[in-house]
């Protein structure tokens, strides 16, 4: 659909784009982490691009899982996450209302250094979305004006949408005193 956007982006900033691909009708550009702000500024301001509308920002945890095969006749997709590839993918979806095109920027973020440049200076709507991504996945957005938890409470420890968060681990704020097992009383910190 908007393959020409990918081509123009690769032509304009060849050093910033790792590779490009298309999946399910959406164009994806893998961006180097350090040039994300440069690419985003170009996409927003260049008259041929004009991506004025921020659609969403989220993250994918590639711990131990891979995209399913869509059509069994196709060859299996390449392994999405291997030991030498980073664990997290931060996704930004942008949309140009003027040119009616869409593009998804993906940034590979390693587990030991979960940082990503913030785009909330360019599109204010990404402010809360980046806070949500931080809340759920623990990605630190450099340059974000107010990076706090947005849904969960301050007392929460860990990031619940990471695949290695225990599935049923709760971190209660209050419990009845007369419960037979009161997790808050039993060990002071750990929840069920």
């Amino acid at each position, binding site marked *: 659909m908007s393959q020409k956007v990918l081509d123009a982006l690769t032509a304009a900033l060849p050093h910033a784009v790792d590779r490009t691909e298309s999946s399910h009708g959406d164009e994806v550009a893998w961006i180097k982490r350090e040039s994300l702000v440069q690419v985003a500024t170009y996409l927003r301001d260049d008259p041929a691009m004009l991506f004025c509308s921020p659609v969403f920002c989220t993250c994918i945890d590639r711990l131990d899982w891979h995209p399913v095969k869509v059509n069994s006749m196709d060859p299996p997709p390449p392994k999405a996450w291997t030991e030498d590839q980073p664990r997290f993918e931060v996704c930004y979806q942008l949309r140009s209302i003027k040119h009616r095109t869409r593009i998804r920027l993906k940034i590979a973020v390693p587990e030991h250094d979960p940082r990503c440049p913030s785009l909330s200076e360019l599109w204010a709507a990404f402010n809360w979305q980046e806070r949500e991504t931080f809340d759920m996945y623990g990605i630190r957005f450099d340059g974000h004006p107010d990076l706090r938890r947005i849904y*969960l*409470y301050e007392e929460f420890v860990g990031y*619940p949408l990471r695949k290695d*968060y225990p599935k*049923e681990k*709760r*971190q*209660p*704020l209050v419990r*009845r005193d007369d419960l037979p097992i009161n997790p808050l009383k039993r060990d002071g910190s750990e929840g069920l």
Partner: protein
Amino acid sequence: MGVELTTTRLENAAEWAKQSKLARIPEWGRKFSLFSYPFVTACCGMEFMSVAAPKYDIARFGAEFPRFSPRQSDLLMIVGTITEKQGPALKRVFDQMAEPKWVLAFGVCASTGGFYQNYHAMPGADQVIPVDVYVPGCPPRPEQVLDALILLMERIQDGRGHSQLRTKREGLIREQADEPGPR
């Protein structure tokens, strides 16, 4: 008060009132005039509207009057999912209600957490406050809610609600310690 007035002419009137049906008059009055506080948090609220609206009409059982302050109500209806973050708010709402008070957990989410078995949902509102009646269903049919209400009314009449039992227990403890106070 009414009990005392009608029994002043009897010797040992208090003893007599304890044994008689007259002592049940306050409970009888309470069960037919429940003022509910709907703590509506999720999709069960739609079914609560249906219960309250004319077709099923909870007013037939005397519980038609939702109050929007917990201080004026004696039946807390927990309608919907309770998250761990909401726990302190729910406990505070319950603590603001005047005694005696009853709690009805509306739907599986409020009863057990339902299909939310994860980091954010509380496994039942009874983790935080005592619940008198649980209504299963996702969401429950209005008939089930009315059934639960009748069950709760029987409990109130028998004095078996959580807060009634607590008051009774505290009264007994005071009696044993021979302290003055409401019995």
